[in-house]
């Protein structure tokens, strides 16, 4: 028996990192008795350790709750948690498309941030009803009235009635539930029309295969339905449908307006991409739901096991992660310096860091990663076009007519006192100023056009440190433009070390070459011979440093017979030696490869 559609509310929560989204979700689960208090673990929806630690959501996890309103009726709430980072903008937009409303959480001590605004615009694009909420009123520095004015000024909708809450303490959270009932419209959609189900996420389950998280827009689906992906044409037999309580609970069917999961013995999440529409093979819809995009990775780097013997383990780990992450791409590559590894593609920097961290933590791997790269377009002298995401694959300069690099439009929101330093930062990253607008007194939105390759490593960290954590940042890919790019190489004792090569703008090549050479001189341990380090563009040496030969390496004394300590030191040295990479005659520690990144 399908639930009365008028009593369904599908909504998500939009908030900046740390503004309290997950905490609010936890309180809602408690208030609706969805999760017994004793089962509560802080931030229940963020199931990965990394999510909890970083306070961000990577995978969206939906949950169904039942709420009895003041009108005496029992409402079904489907809360769809959304990823909270610019890397996952597309995923966010699909999650939003599964909802009719969005609870906008703004921290009363911080105000609106760049990323919040970006997500609010996405929500408005999807015609969602916005339910503003001002959080953290328990903090001494909270200024709820000012925050409400800011919401009204910046976003331009009334927020006077916004609940002032403390998600942490539970204060006024019940008001939020009431507002959801009152403001968010019930879902529409014809239950007898052909099936159209929007996939807004998917997850790999060891027993059931891929679970597609879906919002049924029209029609219905049940076990036994033969479904088709309208993006790929692949067909599957549905083995099970169900909902999130938040544990999986099997149901007879999912009807238009509802949110749930579909299992159909699907082997990898890449077969059921986010944004795809599922339809019924027996009674297919004519058109897919709008908005599907094939998402391509924007940032690439080489990932290698620190110990070459771990190659197979790394491969298995990547396979496992990819089961759950359709946007992670990887293919084998070989480096002379690093041996066998993988070229991996990511949606953005955070995505890259998360994958690296998960590989190291969940799979206990020691990794060496090369400097991240964007995709460059290369036009050869003969007119042929190439896309390059690995500097090693760049043709010789003589065969290149010109190159193009991707540019982004960036929004930086910051208190006005940091405008000067942030503009300096953007200029130093070859940024082109577009405009600056006051959001309110004391806060501005700076717009810059920036080359993607200038922001893929530490731009965000720099921005945070230069603004004492106050500035926020959001970007979107704009276009490719012609650029004077060169390949910067490093030679160690005369041998090219491919894993250190990067593509940089010519104006920055000299400074970067010098800085990296100096850093390498610091991190390469002295060996039994002198090691010249050279930075080169094409055949031309632009910087040189030298690692002097080591003179002695001996333990000074064995005191009082404490030889276990000496043995441990030797074992550590042996372990370190094993992890060194041989480039020609030179042994390189893992840090050497990171030194290309840690420059500034």
């Amino acid at each position: 028996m399908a639930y009365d559609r008028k009593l369904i509310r599908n909504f998500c929560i939009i908030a900046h990192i740390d503004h309290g989204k997950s905490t609010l979700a936890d309180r809602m689960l408690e208030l609706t008795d969805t999760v017994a208090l004793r089962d509560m673990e802080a931030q229940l929806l963020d199931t990965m350790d990394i999510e909890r630690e970083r306070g961000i959501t990577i995978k969206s996890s939906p949950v169904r709750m039942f709420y009895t309103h003041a009108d005496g009726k029992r409402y079904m709430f489907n809360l769809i948690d959304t990823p909270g980072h610019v890397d996952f903008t597309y995923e966010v937009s699909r999650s939003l498309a599964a909802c009719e409303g969005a609870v906008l959480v703004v921290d009363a001590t911080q105000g609106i941030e760049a990323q919040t605004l970006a997500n609010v615009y996405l929500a408005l694009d999807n015609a969602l009803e916005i339910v503003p909420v001002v959080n953290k009123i328990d903090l001494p520095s909270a200024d709820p009235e000012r925050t409400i004015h800011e919401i009204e000024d910046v976003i331009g909708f009334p927020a006077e009635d916004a609940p002032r809450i403390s998600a942490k303490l539970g204060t006024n959270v019940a008001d939020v539930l009431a507002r959801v009932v009152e403001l968010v419209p019930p879902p529409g959609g014809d239950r007898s029309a052909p099936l159209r189900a929007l996939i807004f996420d998917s997850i790999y389950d060891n027993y059931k295969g891929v679970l597609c998280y879906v919002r049924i827009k029209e029609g219905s689906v049940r076990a036994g339905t033969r479904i088709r992906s309208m993006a790929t044409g692949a067909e599957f037999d549905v083995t099970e449908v169900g909902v999130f309580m938040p544990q999986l609970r099997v149901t007879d069917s999912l009807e238009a307006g509802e949110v749930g999961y579909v299992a159909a013995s699907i082997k990898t999440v890449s077969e059921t991409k986010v944004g795809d529409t599922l339809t019924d093979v027996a009674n297919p819809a004519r058109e897919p739901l709008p908005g599907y995009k094939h998402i391509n990775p924007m940032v690439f780097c080489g990932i290698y096991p620190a110990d070459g013997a771990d190659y197979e383990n790394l491969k298995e780990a990547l396979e496992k992660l990819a089961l759950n992450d359709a946007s992670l791409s990887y293919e084998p590559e070989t480096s002379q310096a690093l041996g066998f590894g993988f070229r991996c593609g990511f949606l953005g920097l955070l995505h890259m860091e998360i994958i690296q961290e998960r590989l190291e933590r969940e799979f206990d791997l020691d990794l060496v990663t090369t400097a991240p790269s964007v995709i460059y377009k290369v036009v050869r002298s003969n007119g042929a076009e190439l896309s390059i995401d690995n500097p090693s694959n760049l043709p010789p300069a003589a065969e290149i007519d010109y190159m193009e690099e991707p540019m982004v439009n960036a929004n930086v929101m910051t208190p006005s006192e940091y405008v000067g330093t942030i503009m300096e930062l953007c200029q130093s990253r070859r940024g082109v100023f577009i405009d600056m607008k006051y959001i309110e007194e004391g806060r501005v939105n700076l717009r810059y056009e920036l080359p993607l390759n200038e922001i893929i490593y530490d731009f965000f960290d720099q921005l945070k440190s230069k603004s004492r954590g106050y500035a926020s940042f959001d970007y979107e890919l704009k276009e490719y433009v012609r650029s004077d790019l060169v390949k910067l190489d490093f030679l160690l004792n005369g041998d090219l070390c491919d894993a250190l090569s990067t593509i940089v703008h010519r104006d920055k090549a000299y400074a970067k070459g010098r800085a990296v050479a100096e850093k390498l001189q610091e991190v390469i341990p002295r060996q039994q011979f002198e090691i010249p380090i050279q930075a080169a563009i094409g055949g031309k040496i632009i910087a040189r440093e030298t690692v002097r030969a080591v003179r002695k390496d001996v333990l000074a004394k064995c005191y009082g017979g404490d030889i276990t300590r000496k043995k441990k030191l030797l074992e550590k040295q042996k372990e370190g030696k094993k992890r060194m990479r041989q480039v020609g005659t030179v042994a390189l520690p893992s840090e050497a490869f990171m030194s290309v990144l840690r420059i500034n």
Partner: protein
Amino acid sequence: MPGIYIHIPFCMAKCRYCDFASFADHADTEAYLAALETEMALCREALPQRLYDTVFLGGGTPSVLPEGAVSRVLEALTRKFRVTPDAEITLEANPGTLAADKLFEYRSAGVNRLSLGLQSANDRLLKKLGRIHTYAQFLESFRLARETGFDNVSADIMYGLPGQTPEDHLDTIEKLASLGPEHISAYSLILEENTPLYTDVTGGAQSLPDEDAAYEMHRQGIALLEARGYRRYEISNFARPGCESRHNLNYWNNGEYLGLGLNAHSALRIGEKWTRWSNTARLSDYIQACGSGERPFAGEPQAIPLAEEMFETVMLGLRKTEGVSDAAFRARFGRRMGEVFPKAIERLEKKGWLAEADGFFRLTAEGLDFQNLALLEMM
């Protein structure tokens, strides 16, 4: 024959480079000495009776103990353990803590070798290290030692000190050699984490000589010591012929020793098993364990597998300039060293780091400088 090490964890002040178990607070001295005697009794019961031929009172600074304490410790020791009449009995002492009375006491208690901590003849450097004494006080201590009849005196010096030049180091050696101690230990300073000096250096308040300058001190220091009649018999140790430290040679021969006191280490063959253990490094734990009649272990004694025992023998033996005796190796393990480490020996000989002669495998002068790397080949 096995040796005995006794740790005295008290100092006048903690040197800035020191990370050994030692304390400037002497409030627990009496409790510690009582615990030490208890530990002797516990070891006497637990271990088979052996004959020991060296005793080393180290620290810390044993010479800071109040009068009578060293006699008491050695008396307790000889009541519990058999020590040969001609045993080498060494006591570590620091200038600034010695007076004639104490030295007479040590002599009559059986101490026949003094190890004096000089470190440098340069007062400016001594101060930087946080040493409590001046060079003049060292001269006074040395004179007193000779006057009270110590005919076997060693002095420790260090190089690679903050602000030190090769000339400083050579000057220290020259001055020391002119006094004519029987034995000199010359150690390169090791910057240990969790020491004030480490903080000084990493924070930029002090800077160490660069590797090349430190190497010059090492190289020229060895040459000068040898020129003054001190034969290098171990990586950092030099002696007039016949005056080598028997206690320390026993370590380098991977011999047996019993360590008593805080954080003391032991290696003994128990039954058939080569066994190592160490005592806790926490003073309160040590005193409490002994007080309740328990051995103050830091962890369970470890039986060392044969392969490791062989490696230890090489690791320690190759510190000596005479090297590892193949006959001794075979007597201990039933196999020749060349059979156990054939590839490593071949590679090291090729590099010119190792040579075999007169039944010994020994590191060359260059090999001694790269002993760690040589050992890695054997691991």
